[in-house]
């Protein structure tokens, strides 16, 4: 039901209700008042009549008695009848023309006393109030006066009807008024509804026009303002969306143009994005790989580590430069540098991980070549020493051979000389083997070794350059470790050479081998008392081709850094100009089964 009808019904109902209530009370009051008045009048008439008929009644003056009764009856239009019952209860006189109604005789018997009584009678002639008035206190009889209530009843009915008619008229007027008021209210509401519908359709330019100055107007104003701000918000959203789209395509173009593989995976490890770089590095097209598991590009032995790294990234938000290996679509395994970043939605919930893979194949190849060339450089540097080393046994062999040629020796002496020769040859052979081992370009060959042996081998390789240098060894008992001994040996040789070169006029080298705190790493400290490294260079000394020495390649320490890193370790340097430098190499402790 609409408001207009509610108005009409409410107003009409209220008017009808109040009208009928008033009519009801007016009727009650009128009935009460008029009845009371009529009754009082009746009592007065009856009392007077009762007094005036005492004599005629007692003297059997029936004519006078009848005359009194008739006079009373005719004087008042309301009096329907009068009759007298004598002291014996017999009817003495009545005013009925066609005989006395027997039922009346005992219809109203007054109680003993002077007062008289009234009884409402429902007759064919309407309601009649019978007033019984005792004559001489009832001793001489009772006068009955019948007062018709028809007149007052019709009067009451007339007034009530006027009231009800008036009420209905006012109710109709109220209904019309309600309709008008309802229209006044509903018209602006209809405007509001129309406005709401327009806005609902998306027509935000629609403005609701309300003429009246009331709450509806305020509402309409708010509505219009709402529409305006909605429009503004919509525009802002559109702009933001546009910006977002632009930003997204910008990022996408950056991503696409990147040579690195930039991919993202969801919680279940399903690949959700795949750029051009990824296609090139892994050999899968975007269409092939989307929604497939990340496992497809991770070798079996790395999967566990990758999962760990993803979990770590979730805790720390990112993991940078983790070196691992991946499988291309052609089955080749490639080294990669992986950076993981946790992806979150707008409510900061983790929704997956973005992974940037950098193909390290070329870098590795180059590093290997660099290592090899550095080795050659080292060999060059070592050649003189090697020649000297070999020369000694050769000289000894030569001398022994000269002695044998003279044949002046007995058999025992010959045997001794031959033993000496064999020993010297073995020494030379070992030197050559070492050199060969060092120079050979090889893949990482991990083995279980004692770090102290490697250290000694490295020292022996540079022993010629240690003439003016006092070497102090401080080796602790540490467990064997799992490394490529040749590579590590090269690292140590490079560091030793660096130390030697820092002390052209001699000095001290102190070597400590121990376990790091927590026993995660085997630790080698190599300290010199050389010139030291200026502070501004400290950050850069492991960079390739950075050198401060004349004739240096700038690769030595860079290669060391690469090798140690490949082993999962690290190199640190502490230095003070004029005091010396300390290089510390950390290598993972324990023996691995990989």
């Amino acid at each position, binding site marked *: *039901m609409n408001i207009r009808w*509610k108005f009409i*019904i*409410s107003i009409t*109902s209220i008017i*009808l*209700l109040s009208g*009928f*209530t008033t*009519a*009801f009370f007016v*009727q*009650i009051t009128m*009935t009460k008042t008029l*009845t009371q008045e009529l009754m009082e009048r009746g009592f007065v008439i009856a009392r007077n009549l009762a007094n005036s008929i*005492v*004599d005629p009644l*007692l*003297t*059997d*003056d029936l004519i006078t008695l009848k005359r009194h009764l008739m006079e009373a009856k005719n004087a008042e239009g309301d009096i329907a009848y009068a009759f007298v019952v004598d002291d*014996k209860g*017999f*009817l*003495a*006189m*009545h005013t*009925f023309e*066609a*005989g*006395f*109604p*027997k*039922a*009346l005789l005992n*219809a*109203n018997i007054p109680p003993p006393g002077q007062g008289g009584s009234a*009884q*409402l*009678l*429902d*007759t*064919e*002639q309407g*309601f*009649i109030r019978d007033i019984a008035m005792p004559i*001489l206190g009832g*001793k*001489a009889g009772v006068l009955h006066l019948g007062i018709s209530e028809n007149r007052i009843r019709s009067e009451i009915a007339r007034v009530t009807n006027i009231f009800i008619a008036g009420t209905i008229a006012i109710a109709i007027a109220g209904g019309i008024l309600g309709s008008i008021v309802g229209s006044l209210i509903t018209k602006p509401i209809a405007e509001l509804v129309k406005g709401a519908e327009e806005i609902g359709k998306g027509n935000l330019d629609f403005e609701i026009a309300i003429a009246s100055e009331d709450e509806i107007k305020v509402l309409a104003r708010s509505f219009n303002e709402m529409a305006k701000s909605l429009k503004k918000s919509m525009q802002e959203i559109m702009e933001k969306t546009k910006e977002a789209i632009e930003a997204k395509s910008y990022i996408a173009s950056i991503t696409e143009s990147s040579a690195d593989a930039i991919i993202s995976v969801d919680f279940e490890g399903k690949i959700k994005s795949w750029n051009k770089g990824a296609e090139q590095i892994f050999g899968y097209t975007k269409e092939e790989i989307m929604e497939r598991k990340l496992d497809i590009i991770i070798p079996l032995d790395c999967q566990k580590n990758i999962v760990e790294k993803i979990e770590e990234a979730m805790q720390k938000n990112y993991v940078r430069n983790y070196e691992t290996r991946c499988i291309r679509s052609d089955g080749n395994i490639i080294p990669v540098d992986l950076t993981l970043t946790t992806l979150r939605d707008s409510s900061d919930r983790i929704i997956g991980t973005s992974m940037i893979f950098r193909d390290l194949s070329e870098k590795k190849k180059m590093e290997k070549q660099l290592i090899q060339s550095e080795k050659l450089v080292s060999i060059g540097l070592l050649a003189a020493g090697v020649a000297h080393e070999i020369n000694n046994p050769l000289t000894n062999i030569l001398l022994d051979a000269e002695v044998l040629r003279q044949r002046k020796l007995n058999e025992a002496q010959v045997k001794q000389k031959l033993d000496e020769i064999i020993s010297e040859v073995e020494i030379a052979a070992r030197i050559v083997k070492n050199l060969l081992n060092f120079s050979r370009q090889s893949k990482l060959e991990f083995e279980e070794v004692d770090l102290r042996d490697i250290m000694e081998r490295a020292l022996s390789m540079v022993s010629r350059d240690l003439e003016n240098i006092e070497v102090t060894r401080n080796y602790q008992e540490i467990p064997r470790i799992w490394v490529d001994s040749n590579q590590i040996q090269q690292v140590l040789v490079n560091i030793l050479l660096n130390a030697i070169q820092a002390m052209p006029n001699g000095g001290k080298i102190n070597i400590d081998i121990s376990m790091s705190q927590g026993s995660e790493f085997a630790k080698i400290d190599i300290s010199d008392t050389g010139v030291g490294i200026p502070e501004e260079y400290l950050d850069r000394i492991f960079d390739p081709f950075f050198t401060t020495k004349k004739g240096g390649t700038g690769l030595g320490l860079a290669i060391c850094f690469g090798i140690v890193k490949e082993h999962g370790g690290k190199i640190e340097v502490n230095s003070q100009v004029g005091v010396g430098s300390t290089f510390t190499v950390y290598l993972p402790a324990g023996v691995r089964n990989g």
Partner: protein
Amino acid sequence: MVKKLAIVIFSCFIFFNSCLTFEEAKKVNLSDRSNESLYKEEEIRIAVSSIISPDETFIYYQELFKYLSKKLNKSVKLVQRRSYYETNELIRLNRVEAAFVCSGAYVEGHDEFGMQLLVAPVINGKTTYNSYIIVHRDSDIDSLEKLRAKSFAFTDPLSNTGHLVPLYMLAKMNETPDSFFQRYIYTYSHDKSIEAVAGKIVDGAAVDSLIWDHSNATDPRYTSQTKIINISPPFGIPPVVVPREINRDLKEQMKQVFLHLHEEENGKQILNKIGIDRFIEIEDSAYDSIREIKKWVSSI
């Protein structure tokens, strides 16, 4: 909402309707009419002449009549008429079985149509009464003579004390009411005459001594406003009479009831209340004095 409103309005209508007929009306059928005789004739009718006004009479004699009814074992109706004449007519036509009449009326009735004496009351030990001439207490009139050219109230033309006696007094002065009084009225009962004097409607009145004394003793409202300026000689007391054609047995029965009334406690109380000692038989000669003055007056 509309449903609720409808329910409220409907309830109100029901409520109004139920409230509007708040007075119980007794259903009475007026169409069943009867034209039967209005009067049930009583077995015994006893008339009381209007010595005092009918309502006073009615109250005065009610208990006595009830007692008579019980004693006679018959219903008894007290019959009253406005004047002595009318009462005498009832006796003459034998329409009543007995009557309390004024002494004057008795003399008239007895002499005219054979009205018979039944009994007579003894009041204050006497069977006689007097006529009092009364004036207002504040009046300076102290004799009948001084009532000349004044207004006067007689009771009934047939009354002895209220009419005959004052006429006799006037006649002795060679006066008639017309010549003596400025104006005069008939009140048709003694209490009304007393009231007329007390109310200064008339200057003087002649009343029954029995009535005045009784009123003065029981309800001196009016008598106290009056004073007696003349007391007549005694006359035979107003008797109880019967018609000439009365049934003898009934007459005897009634006589016995009256004569023995004072012997019973109840009867004695009733008699005490109306100031009667007892009833006795009385001789017609007791009323001769009245005949005398009547004769004298009518001879004028």
